[in-house]
């Protein structure tokens, strides 16, 4: 009987898991042949262009498309009138094509398909939209003000008793509490209370959103696009079109970065509808400007936090008030922040209150451990302050308070085996922890938590006639997950990893699979692959038993061979069994689908060494060291890559990145020149320590590594700046101007 939760082996005995083979899709990605979404062209294909709102908040009085329709080359024009009225809570469909109002600058209002990109753009400019401008809100303070202009006239705050009698810009409130807060603070010897603000930032994937849709006359559409989950594309596109999911087939292109930003749709229903009207395939590719104005940023926040600790370093009480922007429609971002804020520490008494706030900015979407980095900025800065006040080593203070197996998360569940303390110890024991620092240099420590998730996954394994294993999943590969699927399959089947071919299949060709999110792919889709392989081994044993005419119980599977335990027959290699498959029951193929449970919580502890230029306020990162619990690293090279990528994004968030909106609510820096993400010369090498405390709920101990790496960098940088200059940074980004202003104020020269 196949048990996919059975732990495979002792870690030391793995042959393939833990090795670093060249990824199977690597060749195409170094020779330019890999096909990303914008790389596909079809015969008779048209180009689409989306007309977007120039206003942050306005009522749409009328849309006149007549002139546009008469423009050269134009084959179709669409507006919200071409789509069924969405459910009032289908915020995705409501966002994708404005109806009676536009809620942010950049929101789609209409779209055109024409023979060329130029024709489509020229025609879109001829669409006449009459707007009535409305007052807008761009910040948490503006949006939460008593008499604030409302985005949604019927929005009543959830999670507040009694239910508010009037609408507001606050969709929901989340509360987590434990113990007796007042008693906790009374017990404390030191108490710090601070306020933090962070800005809207973008995931910054290098590949803009792109889609090709080909809708046939019987209302079926084939969609090629890059996303973090093509079943999600199918579901959300079908919802907006008012179709059944089965009317759509979504083919995943290679994805050029997502980081959470491609866990939703933007263009697909528009392209499918244009294609339906034009009766030709339609391709839409966003410009970078559109990506910034109309897609996925992550929330700006305002956070107030108060922590109390005893002289021995034990944190006894914590209070927090969190407000997260959600962009134009309700989201879950404040709640996620509340889940993560105090999760690394065992605090007996706390009260965490979090608010979602709608503002006239693009609709927020996940960005790598969404909401946790801002929360950690607040917690880890105050924890650093307590350590300094108590003259305790910052790692020692964290070890005193760190959660461990059996501790409870702020939202209730108990932790299983976790490696938080191990990450702290790994940093403390690293030689970088004792490198002496020079003038204007500082060292900062911070930790971070992310819960990770499981969700649905499917895998099919086919054996070819010559004994190659084709491993098919429905999880887009955003950072090397094909390699980890192949390694687990090779380990299970006992064959060379080169004899495994990992593939990502379209929505018709593999069972339902949730989005690549929550660091779940190697965990959950990996479990599906392991399950399919174990079923396949049972089948291979059965086939060998038939070939030998013995009982299946006499057949074992080892190192890619069927072994006859009573030793009458020479071992049968996998390829010999597949060659005879026709005589033993036909093709060898198995499928395993599951709803994965037991994702292990992820922790990371990081150390930043930096230097502040007292003349300019500019920060140079000197050294960066990160220790993260991977559970088990299936392909250590790509595990390190996840750690390093998260750190680099966190450093960008800490030092440079922010959306700049002018008073009219128009984004002023929608390009990589002015929205500056880290470049190669901004960063040092990022030293990685892979901690491995296996997750018992996964056959190889995987706990998911994609996200938590972005959580500690902001406070690690902030704490290092404090160490270098004495300045406590509480506003992002920590740009040279901000630091210089702080230094001048401190020195009394400003």
């Amino acid at each position, binding site marked *: 009987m196949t048990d996919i939760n059975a732990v495979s082996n002792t870690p030391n005995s793995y042959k393939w898991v833990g090795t670093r083979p060249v990824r199977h899709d690597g060749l195409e990605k170094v*020779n330019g*042949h890999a096909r990303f979404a914008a790389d596909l062209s079809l015969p008779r294909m048209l180009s689409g262009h989306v007309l977007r709102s120039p206003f942050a908040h306005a009522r749409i009085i009328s849309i006149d498309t007549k002139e546009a329709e008469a423009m050269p080359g134009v084959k179709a024009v669409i507006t919200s009138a071409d789509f069924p009225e969405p459910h009032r809570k289908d915020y995705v469909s409501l966002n994708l094509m404005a109806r009676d109002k536009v809620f942010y600058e950049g929101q789609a209002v209409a779209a055109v398909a024409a023979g060329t990109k130029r024709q489509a753009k020229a025609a879109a400019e001829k669409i006449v939209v009459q707007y009535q401008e409305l007052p807008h809100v761009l910040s948490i303070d503006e949006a939460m003000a008593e008499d604030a202009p409302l985005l949604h006239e019927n929005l009543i705050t959830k999670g507040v008793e009694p239910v508010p009698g009037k609408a507001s810009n606050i969709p929901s409130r989340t509360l987590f509490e434990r113990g007796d807060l007042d008693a906790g603070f009374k017990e404390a010897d030191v108490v710090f209370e601070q306020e933090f603000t962070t800005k809207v930032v973008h995931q910054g994937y*290098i590949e803009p959103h792109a889609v090709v849709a080909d809708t046939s006359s019987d209302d079926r559409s084939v969609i090629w696009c890059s996303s973090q989950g093509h079943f999600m594309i199918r579901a959300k596109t079908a919802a907006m079109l008012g179709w059944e999911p089965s009317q759509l087939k979504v083919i995943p292109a290679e994805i050029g970065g997502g980081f959470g930003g491609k866990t939703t749709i933007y263009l697909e229903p528009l392209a499918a509808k244009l294609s339906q009207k034009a009766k030709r395939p339609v391709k839409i590719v966003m*410009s*970078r400007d559109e990506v910034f104005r109309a897609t996925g940023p992550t929330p700006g926040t305002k956070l107030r936090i108060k922590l109390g600790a005893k002289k021995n370093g034990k944190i006894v009480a914590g209070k927090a008030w969190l407000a997260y922007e959600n962009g134009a429609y309700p989201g879950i971002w404040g709640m996620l922040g509340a889940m993560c804020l105090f999760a690394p520490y065992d605090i007996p008494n706390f009260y965490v209150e979090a608010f979602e706030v709608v503002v006239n900015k693009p609709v927020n979407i996940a960005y790598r451990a969404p909401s946790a980095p801002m929360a950690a900025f607040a917690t880890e800065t105050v924890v650093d302050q307590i350590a300094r006040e108590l003259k305790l080593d910052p790692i020692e203070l964290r070890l005193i308070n760190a959660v461990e197996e059996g501790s409870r998360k702020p939202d209730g569940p108990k932790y299983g085996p976790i490696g938080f303390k191990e990450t702290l110890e790994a940093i403390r024991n690293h030689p970088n922890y004792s490198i002496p620092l020079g003038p204007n240099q500082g060292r900062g420590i911070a930790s971070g938590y992310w819960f990770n998730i499981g969700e649905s996954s499917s895998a099919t394994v086919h054996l070819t006639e010559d004994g190659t294993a084709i491993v098919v999943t429905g999880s887009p590969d955003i950072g090397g997950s094909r390699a980890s699927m192949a390694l687990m399959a090779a380990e299970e089947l006992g064959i060379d990893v080169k004899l495994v071919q990992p593939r990502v299949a379209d929505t018709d060709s593999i069972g339902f699979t949730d989005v690549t999110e929550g660091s779940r792919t190697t965990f959950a889709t990996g479990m599906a692959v392991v399950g399919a392989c174990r079923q396949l081994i049972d089948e291979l044993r059965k086939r060998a038993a038939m070939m030998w005419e013995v009982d299946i119980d006499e057949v074992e599977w080892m190192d890619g061979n069927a072994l006859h335990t009573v030793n009458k027959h020479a071992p049968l290699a996998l390829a010999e069994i597949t060659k005879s498959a026709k005589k033993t029951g036909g093709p060898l193929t198995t499928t395993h689908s599951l709803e994965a449970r037991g994702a292990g919580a992820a922790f990371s502890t990081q150390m930043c060494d930096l230097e502040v230029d007292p003349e300019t306020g500019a920060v140079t990162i000197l050294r960066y060291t990160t220790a993260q619990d991977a559970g088990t690293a299936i392909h250590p090279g790509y595990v390190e*890559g996840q750690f390093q990528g998260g750190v680099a994004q966190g450093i960008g968030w800490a030092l440079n990145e922010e959306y700049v909106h002018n008073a009219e609510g128009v984004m002023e820096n929608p390009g990589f020149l002015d929205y500056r993400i880290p470049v190669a010369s901004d*960063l040092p*090498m990022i030293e990685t320590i892979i901690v491995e405390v296996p997750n018992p709920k996964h056959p190889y101990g995987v706990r998911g590594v994609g996200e938590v790496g972005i959580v500690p960098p902001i406070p690690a940088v902030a704490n290092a700046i404090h160490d270098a200059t004495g300045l406590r940074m509480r506003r992002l980004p920590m740009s040279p101007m901000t630091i210089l202003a702080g230094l001048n104020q401190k020195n009394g020269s400003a």
Partner: protein
Amino acid sequence: MNRRHITCTINGDKAEFLCDDDESLLNTLRDELGLTGAKEGCGTGDCGACSVMLNGRLVCSCLVFAPEAEGATIETIEGMADGEHLHPLQTAFLEGAALQCGICTPGVLIAAKALLDRNPEPTESEVRYALAGNLCRCTGYDKIVRSVLDAAAQMKNNLQEGDRL
């Protein structure tokens, strides 16, 4: 508008195409010539994903007008491997796990080759500055920089072995 007829050499082969005067070389490569290895990440010369060599010079092809290609020699990622033989940079990137999503990889490889062609033994700092025009959001650059240094060392070894033979 009359389209202009352009003749040039791309990856060693003669190529001809028609283009509008204000069309970018990037769009022409991708849409007219089917060379989709160069990517558009920004269209404003900030991300380097569209990097190609134009007459031996590293350029963002989104900032070059297609008519500027008249008579020019262009090298793109599709021409980097010598038949079945990968360039040592390509091999080093595969072995060093220097790509995650892979969208920036063609541009990074072109820029890295441009560096090694003029400076075969760069320091880490020289690699970082040479690649500062190529944005990568996945890797934090660590494995990219290490792989470029590894490729440089490998190419030096190959050269020395060549000398010995």
